[in-house]
């Protein structure tokens, strides 16, 4: 059924279709309407879940770990400062192998305080052991939630997932979204059956114990193995999703890259703008393409390299900054593969990125003056 909805609504619809049993959430701009939609679904009896009105994001994720530990499917959502407040427990959630799914409305981190979009918040959680999926639009937001449960709950994986949607650009923008039927989703994503440790008086287990140096490294190594295995699980899950729902996804999306001389690499909503620019430039005969990174963790290095290896140069666009070294995606790509790349920082704290900016990035990438320079796009001249 096609409905015109925002990505926040799409996330909420995806959650409803996934039938979580416990939903602890705390409001924060621009995530708030996700928690409101879910509250309404529960109030109307459309979602049979325990909705916990926690007093902070820290308690939201803590309650989610407790609920997941007790053997049920759980969902929470947050943004920016809230995600930063969760930071400590994000590690615990992954380390305890709780397959929680979270929606994150990407928003800049303070200071200065900003409610507007960039991706610093989730990028800053890259080492917590969570999988991260970046949506380009509301349809992907909905679909990625359903897929995230299936991937996270796979016994080869058992790591939590974050579905990231750009604040306001997606969270508050409406567009047509195909909402799958409950029957189809139930078949694709059956009720959660925990197969590993969970809290049950009939079979008592201790979860979240204390370890000495004899055991800690193995537990962390097991997470790395799971993260690597998740790549195949993601592919298989998307394949199965396509067979049922007809929409095709991968860890990356290749848009006009096969013969491209210049390839732009980016994540999230900006990919929509880039696709439009690629179409325009292609009409003018420029061989330009977009590589959209959907799965940021696990990092799809083979998939990225396969696409970019034949390009003359690539441009990596980061809505984040690791001070002193540049954009995180740029540096990870540079670290993992031999490519001629230029790095661009843009869109921080909601700074608009126009099609002209993308055209300029293509120009700068084709004729780099200094390849080591981190290029800031849309920065105001000093007055």
């Amino acid at each position, binding site marked *: 059924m096609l409905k015109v909805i925002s990505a926040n609504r799409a996330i909420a619809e995806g959650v409803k279709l996934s039938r979580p049993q416990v939903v602890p959430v705390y409001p924060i701009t621009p995530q708030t309407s996700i928690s409101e939609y879910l509250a309404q679904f529960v109030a109307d009896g459309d979602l049979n879940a325990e909705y916990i009105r926690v007093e902070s994001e820290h308690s939201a994720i803590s309650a989610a770990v407790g609920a997941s530990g007790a053997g*049920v499917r759980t969902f929470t959502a947050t943004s920016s400062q809230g995600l930063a407040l969760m930071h400590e427990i994000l590690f615990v959630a992954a380390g305890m192998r709780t397959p929680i799914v979270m929606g994150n409305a990407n928003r800049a981190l303070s200071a200065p305080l900003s409610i507007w979009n960039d991706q610093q918040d989730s990028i800053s959680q890259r080492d917590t052991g969570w999988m991260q999926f970046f949506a380009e639009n509301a349809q992907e937001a909905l679909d990625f939630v359903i897929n995230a449960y299936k991937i996270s709950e796979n016994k080869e994986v058992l790591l939590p997932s974050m579905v990231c949607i750009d604040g306001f650009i997606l969270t508050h923008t409406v567009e047509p979204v195909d909402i799958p039927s409950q029957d189809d989703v139930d078949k694709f994503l059956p009720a959660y059956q925990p197969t590993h440790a969970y*809290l049950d008086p009939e079979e*008592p*287990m201790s*979860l979240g114990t204390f370890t000495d140096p004899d055991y800690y490294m193995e537990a962390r190594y097991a997470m790395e193995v799971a993260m690597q295995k998740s790549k195949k699980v993601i592919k298989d899950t998307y394949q199965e999703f396509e067979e049922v729902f007809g929409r095709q996804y991968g860890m990356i999306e290749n848009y006009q890259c096969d013969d491209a001389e210049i390839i732009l690499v980016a994540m999230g909503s900006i990919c929509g703008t880039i696709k439009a620019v690629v179409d325009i430039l292609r009409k003018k005969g420029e061989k330009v393409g977009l590589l959209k990174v959907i799965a940021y963790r696990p990092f799809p290095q083979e998939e990225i390299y396969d696409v970019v290896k034949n390009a003359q140069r690539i441009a990596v666009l980061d809505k984040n900054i690791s001070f002193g070294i540049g954009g995180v995606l740029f540096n990870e790509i540079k670290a993992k593969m031999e490519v001629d790349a230029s790095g661009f920082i843009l869109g921080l704290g909601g700074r608009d990125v126009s099609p002209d900016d993308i055209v300029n990035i293509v120009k700068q990438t084709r004729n780099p003056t200094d390849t080591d320079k981190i290029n800031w796009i849309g920065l105001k001249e000093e007055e």
Partner: protein
Amino acid sequence: MDIPEEEFLAPGHRACAGCGATIGVRLALKMLGKNTVAVSATGCLEVVTTPYPETAWKIPWIHVAFENSAAVASGVERALRSQGKDDVNVVVFAGDGGTADIGLQSLSGAMERGHNLIYICYDNEAYMNTGVQRSGATPYGASTTTSPHGKESFGEDKPKKNIPMIMAAHGVPYVATASISYPEDFMKKVKKASEIEGPAYIHLHQPCATGWGYDPSKTIELGRLAVETGSWILYEIEDGEFKVTYRPMERKPVNIYLESQKRFKHLADEEKERIQSYVDQVCAELKI
């Protein structure tokens, strides 16, 4: 009182000799029984009972972090309810630091939301797991490693934060204080807490030989002295009604309690008198 023999906290854990916290857990679990899930905050109890791959817990148990045990318990309780397991007790064991300081926000949230859980604060009056640093529950005059006595200091210079009354102010159906040295009184309160629908809070006073500085064989005796001197008062607040549950026959001078512990040894008469007059004032109000 009929006390079940079955133990749900196994021996062989790594607690110090004379540990009061583990005594408290054993007593509480005797009342709660097998059909119970325990949640622990980071702290002594968590560390000594679960050195992987061993565990002392014979019931399901979960630990997530220091400041969030009440939030974790909220999630556990709702998850059990969503599975139709409403009959399972959910009990939190958190120390005084994890309750009065770093965990106060999540505790307040859980109490106010009305989860059906029992929160037991095992109060040894300082951060014992990290080596005796003061917490909000450290009493006036106690010397700790972060409130040491010295030329310019008589130790902790603030009175103990009154967490049970803060919990009572949340309007929860059951709040009680207890001591491991009065096991029947404590266990009756645990039983009552488990039978009440909604949140229950029990603040359990438990001497700590390592942190307080006394012979480990004297743990129970120290707990009794705290109560017999009026330094710790046993009461319960059921549906808003306050009741003292134990009144010493004859209240002993506070000095006996203070002088039996290294943490108070340095106190001058002036401070001891101040503590005695504070205790007298509280006891007068309660007619103890």
